[in-house]
């Protein structure tokens, strides 16, 4: 999975990009630790109703 740098609310994060269904399904499941400046960005092709 690609990692990209983003900025939001004056903070910077290095996020994994979940683009495929498999990547989105897996998400951050079963991760027990997440560094403060890391996360995951789920990208949808079209604006849509999304349930998490």
């Amino acid at each position, binding site marked *: 999975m*690609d990692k*990209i*740098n*983003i*900025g*939001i*609310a004056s*903070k*910077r*994060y290095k*996020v994994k990009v979940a683009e495929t269904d498999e990547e989105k399904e897996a*998400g*951050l*499941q*079963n*991760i*027990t*630790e*997440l560094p*403060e400046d*890391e*996360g*995951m*960005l*789920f*990208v*949808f092709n*079209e*604006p*849509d*109703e*999304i*349930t*998490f």
Partner: protein
Amino acid sequence: MKDTKIPLDIVFINEDLDVISVHEGIPESEEFITENNVTFVLEVNKNSGITKGDELEFSPDSQVDNSKMIVLDPNGNPQMELDGGERIFSRANTKILIKFAKKAHSTQSDNDYKALGKRVFKFLQVQEQNEPEYVKSKN
């Protein structure tokens, strides 16, 4: 958040990169959160301080996908992206190729198409022999 082990902030973001809402992702919760007009969802540790109306920014250095080749103008600004396999010909060579192609198209003669093909391969061969030249990206 089923199978999620750590408390997260679930940030829903629209097409304009504005935060629509921020929800708490509770570990192992069976509850679902639904939002409309979502283009991005960001998950980070909880208490991120992100609130509705904040804007998502892609850092310039991360907009460049390293798997892609990008054509830069003389100032280093991206002009186009290459998927791979493309060839770029000089303006002069392009003119020549267009001339040959036009002729082949008008005469529909095999020989003229052959001449066009030969010319294309000749230009490709020249490119193949050129040493790569690199310039620094603006970023």
